[in-house]
């Protein structure tokens, strides 16, 4: 099934595939700047999850996990100089399903499950039956992690 079939808004807003499909990492890892392991708070402990963050599929657990990387809640998805932003999508039950990371261009990058990475607009994946909608935007200062700006570009 094509990406556009799963995310119909991609056709209107445009997108670009930026990697081959792989199941080495997922969107949560990609949002965190990693591409060598699968992040998820599964209670069975199969996937990676930061120490100290609860292994529960809740927004609170995701906020706790990303706070270990220096992220905090913010109110705007617009780019801010000196900050990196990530978005958390949730389904109708309020459970996290997906994350995207903002690029220095102001666009967003997502790893789609075991499929490809794409560059897209934040609302391109919003409202789909697959990921639901954006619930929170988090940001962190790049000044404390100077190497991450080049990785996210």
């Amino acid at each position: 099934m094509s990406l556009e079939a799963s995310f119909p808004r991609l056709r209107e807003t445009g997108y670009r595939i930026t990697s081959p499909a792989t199941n080495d990492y997922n969107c949560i890892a990609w949002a965190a700047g990693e591409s060598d392991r699968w992040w998820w708070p599964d209670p069975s402990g199969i996937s990676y999850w930061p120490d100290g963050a609860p292994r529960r599929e809740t927004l609170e657990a995701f906020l706790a996990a990303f706070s270990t990387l220096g992220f905090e809640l913010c109110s705007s998805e617009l780019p801010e100089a000196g900050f990196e932003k990530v978005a958390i999508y949730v389904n109708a039950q309020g459970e996290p399903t997906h994350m995207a990371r903002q690029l220095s261009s102001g666009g967003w990058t997502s790893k789609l499950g075991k499929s490809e990475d794409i560059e897209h607009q934040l609302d391109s994946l919003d409202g789909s039956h697959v990921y639901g909608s954006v619930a929170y935007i988090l940001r962190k200062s790049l000044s404390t992690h100077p190497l991450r700006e080049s990785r996210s570009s």
Partner: protein
Amino acid sequence: MRFAETSTWLPTSLVGVYPPSLFDTESEGVGDDAITLARRFIDATKHYRFPITRQTTVEKFQSLISEWKNDTHLMSSSTSMILHKAYQQIIGMGPTVIPLILRELQNSPDHWFAALKALTGIDPVAPSDRGKLGAMTNAWLEWARRQGYSW
């Protein structure tokens, strides 16, 4: 007793070959033995007609893998992947599928670790390798070789 119209359950290739009266057990002179034979014939024909009853373990496993991969390729939630009905059906097939999972893991590494953990009761993956597909795959394949599995 009277069996339904033969065209609803008899393989297409056999409709017309057997006269409907063959399956009309209410005909005069039909005894218990004939009814038993008719029932056995119908059961055998239904097994022929509905292939799932003829699937081998390997065919069923491959069919479930295809369904699981198709349904989960956009998911990030390893929990949802594990709870998918096809994945659960694979676990439900029992220890006989362990070599099939090991072969699949070797040829096309994917998230089979929860199934292997459920089927074997152990987890050979080091905590520092959680989430790392290559390292987890190697840990399971090495463990399986040590246990004498072949796949």
